[in-house]
C-alpha cells in the first residue's frame, strides 16, 4: 500500500526535479528572489492579481534603475505564488518560498492566510511585509519578521466610527459585517468608536463574503430607521448592498472601509453608488508625490488599479530600501534596518512601531460624486 505512496513521490520527484529555481549567478549579476503571495484563484483572485502587479511594478522599476548591494550588482526576481486565501495553502506556499531561497516576502493578502504563514517566515528569519492584512492579531504575535504597510483594523475602525458620528452626524447607526476576519474585525472597531463618540448602534446584522442578497437584513434594518449603514466587507458585497438599499427606498447613508473604496464598486453599483462613502488608509493617490505617476504607469501596464496594488508597490520599495541601507540582501542584516524605515511611498509616509505596524497612519475618506471617488478629507488615526 505505502509502496504506492513511495512510488508516487518518486514520480513527483521526477516531474519536479530540475524545475526549482535556485538563486543563481547571472554573469556578474547576483539574482535575488523575493516572494509575493496572494490568492490568484478563487473569489478574490482579482485582488490577488492586483497585489502581484503592484509588487511586480516596483520590482521592475528597481531592476531598471539598477541595484547594487555590497559592491555587487543585484537583479531582483519575483516568485509569485497562489495561496487561494486558504490558511493551510498559505503555510505550504510560505514553506515553498523559504525553500526556494527568497530573502523576503510581500504578502499575504488576507489576514487569515497571513497569520499562519507569518510563523513560518519568523521561524526561518525571512522578513515579511503584508500590503493588506489588517487583523490586529497579525503583528500581535510578536514575530520580529512581521510588518505591514496598511493601518490595522483598530486604527481604521476607530477613525471610521468617530467620523460617522461627529462629522457625518449619524446618531443611529446600523452595522453589517461579512463574518470574515477583515469584516468582523473592522466592524467591531467601528462599533466601539461610534459608541464612544456618542452614537447609538441600533442594529448589528451579518452576512457572508459569498452573499449577494441582503434584502432580508436590510429590510430589518430599515425598520429601525438608522441614519447610516456601515458595512465591513468587500466591494462584491458592498455594491449589491447599496443597490438593494436604494431599492428598498432607504435614505440612510452608506459607509464602508477600504474593501469597498474601489473603482469596481462604482462599476458594479452604477448610478446607485452616488453618495456612498468609504475610507482607505493612507493619503489619496493623487495627493502623493509620485502617486499619479504610479497610477499612470500601473494602468498603462496592467489596467485599472483594483485596490491594494499601491500598498504592494510600497511594500516592495520599503523592503528594498532597507536592503539599500543595510547594503546587503542578507535577511539577517536588512531585517535590522526595517524598524528604522522612514519611506515616502505613494500611499503615505511609512514608519513602523515596535510591533511592525505603521505609525500614525492616516485614513482618508472618500465619497462617490458624479460617478467617481472624490476625496472628502484625511484624518490622522492617532494610534
Amino acid at each position, binding site marked *: *500500500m505505502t509502496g504506492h505512496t513511495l512510488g508516487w513521490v518518486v514520480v*513527483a520527484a521526477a516531474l519536479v526535479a530540475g524545475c526549482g529555481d535556485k538563486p543563481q549567478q547571472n554573469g556578474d549579476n547576483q539574482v535575488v528572489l523575493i516572494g509575493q503571495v496572494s490568492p490568484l484563484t478563487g473569489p478574490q483572485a482579482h485582488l490577488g492579481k492586483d497585489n502581484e502587479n503592484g509588487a511586480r511594478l516596483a520590482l521592475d522599476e528597481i531592476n531598471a534603475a539598477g541595484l547594487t548591494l555590497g559592491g555587487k550588482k543585484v537583479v531582483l526576481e519575483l516568485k509569485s505564488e497562489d495561496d487561494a486565501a486558504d490558511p493551510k495553502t498559505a503555510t505550504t506556499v510560505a514553506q515553498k518560498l523559504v525553500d526556494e531561497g527568497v530573502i523576503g516576502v510581500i504578502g499575504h493578502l488576507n489576514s487569515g492566510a497571513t497569520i499562519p504563514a507569518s510563523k513560518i517566515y519568523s521561524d526561518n528569519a525571512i522578513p515579511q511585509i503584508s500590503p493588506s492584512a489588517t487583523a490586529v492579531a497579525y503583528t500581535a504575535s510578536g514575530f520580529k519578521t512581521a510588518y505591514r504597510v496598511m493601518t490595522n483594523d483598530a486604527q481604521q475602525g476607530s477613525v471610521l466610527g468617530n467620523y460617522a458620528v461627529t462629522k457625518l452626524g449619524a446618531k443611529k447607526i446600523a452595522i453589517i459585517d461579512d463574518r470574515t476576519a477583515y469584516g468582523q474585525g473592522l466592524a467591531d472597531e467601528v462599533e466601539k468608536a461610534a459608541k464612544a463618540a456618542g452614537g447609538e448602534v441600533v442594529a448589528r446584522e451579518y452576512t457572508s463574503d459569498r452573499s449577494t442578497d441582503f434584502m432580508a437584513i436590510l429590510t430589518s434594518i430599515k425598520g429601525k430607521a438608522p441614519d447610516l449603514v456601515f458595512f465591513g466587507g468587500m466591494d462584491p458585497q458592498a455594491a449589491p448592498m447599496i443597490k438593494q438599499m436604494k431599492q428598498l427606498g432607504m435614505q440612510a447613508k452608506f459607509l464602508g472601509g477600504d474593501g469597498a473604496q474601489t473603482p469596481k464598486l462604482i462599476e458594479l453599483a452604477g448610478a446607485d453608488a452616488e453618495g456612498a462613502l468609504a475610507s482607505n488608509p493612507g493619503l489619496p493617490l493623487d495627493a502623493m508625490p509620485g502617486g499619479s505617476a504610479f497610477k499612470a504607469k500601473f494602468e498603462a501596464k496592467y489596467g485599472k488599479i483594483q485596490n491594494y496594488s499601491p500598498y504592494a508597490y510600497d511594500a516592495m520599495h520599503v523592503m528594498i530600501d532597507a536592503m539599500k541601507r543595510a547594503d546587503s540582501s542578507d535577511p539577517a542584516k536588512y531585517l535590522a534596518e526595517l524598524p528604522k524605515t522612514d519611506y515616502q511611498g505613494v500611499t503615505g509616509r511609512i514608519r513602523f512601531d515596535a510591533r511592525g505596524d505603521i505609525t500614525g497612519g492616516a485614513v482618508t475618506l472618500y465619497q462617490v460624486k458624479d460617478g467617481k471617488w472624490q476625496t472628502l478629507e484625511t484624518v490622522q488615526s492617532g494610534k
Partner: protein
Amino acid sequence: MSSVPKLNKPQPRWLVFGLLALGLALLPFLVDAGLGRSWVRLLDLALLYVMLALGLNIVVGYAGLLDLGYVAFYALGAYVYAWLASPHFGLHLPFWAILPLGAALAGLFGVLLGTPTLRLRGDYLAIVTLGFGEIIRIFMNNLNAPVNLTNGPQGINLIDPVRLGEFSLSQPHALFGYTFTGVHLTYYLFLLLVLAVIFISMRLEDSRIGRAWVAIREDEIAAAATGINTRNLKLLAFAMGATFGGLAGGLFASFQGFISPESFNLMESIMILCMIVLGGMGHIPGVIFGAVVLTLLPEALRYTGDWQRTLFGQIYIDPADLRMLLFGVALVAVMLYRPAGMIPSARRRQEFADAKG
C-alpha cells in the same frame, strides 16, 4: 493449513516490511534533499489527510453512509486543542492529554449528530450531514459573542506545538549528529499515528463489526433481518470516523499554530470524500493512495509554468490559472477510466464487473 510451507514464507514478508519501514523512515530526508523542505511539510499534510480519509472511509466506505459534514469533527478536534493549548484561555495542557480528549469529544459528537440521521438514507443523509457540518462551522465563526469561545472569524493564534517537556516539535533538534527540523519530527509523529489508525482500520475491517457494516452497506433491511443491530453499528461507524477526524484536527491545530473557521468549510469535506472515492472506497491502500495524491497533486501542478517553459519555451497560461483546471480534468479522467477508484478492493472490482455484465 499445513505447517510445513510456512517455514520459508515469513522471510520475504519481513523483508518487505523492513524495506517499507526503512523507506518510510528515510522518506522525509530523501524528499528534503531532492525536492525541498516544503515537500516535507506537504508529506506531513498528506499524512494528516490519510488519517482523515481513513476516518471518513469507516463511515462512507465500510458502512456506506454518505457523510458530507465530516469536517465538523476535524474542526472540533482542532478547536479543543486550541482551547486547551493556547493563550486564548491561558491554558497550556500537554498534547498527550488534549489529543485523546479532542478525539473522544469528536466521537461523542459523532454519536450526537448521528442519532437524528438514523432513518435517513443516501442523498437525504448527505444533505443533513452537510447541514450539520455547516452549522458547526457557523457556530465556530460566530461564538466570539456573547462569550468569546472561538474568537470568531479572527481564529485562534499561537497554538502550542506538540511538546514533551522541553522537547518541542516546532524547533530543530540535533540528534545523532543530524539536525531534525520541526517538519521532520512532525512527520514521524504523524506517521506513528497514521500507522495506528491503519492498524485499527484493518482490525475493524476483519472483525464481526466490519462485516456487519458491509452487510448494512449492501442491504440494510437484510442486515437487520439477520439480527444485526443496525442502529448501534451505524452510530459506532459515525463515532469511529469522528474520533479519527477529531484526532487529525488536534494535530492540524498544533502543526499550523493557528486555526480559523475558514479552514473547515464544505469544500474540505468534499475533498476528503474525493480522496476515498478516487483512491478506492472501503479499501485501505486505495484510500491512502487517494489522500496522498489529492494532497500532493494541486501542489505539483504549481510547476506547470516550468513545464510550459521547458516544452514550448514560454508560458502561455498562468500556472495559477491552469492548476485547478488540470485538477478538475484529473478528477473526471480518473473516474471515467477507473470508476471504482485507482486501487479498488477486490469486492468492489467484482461488483463493478457484475454491474457491467
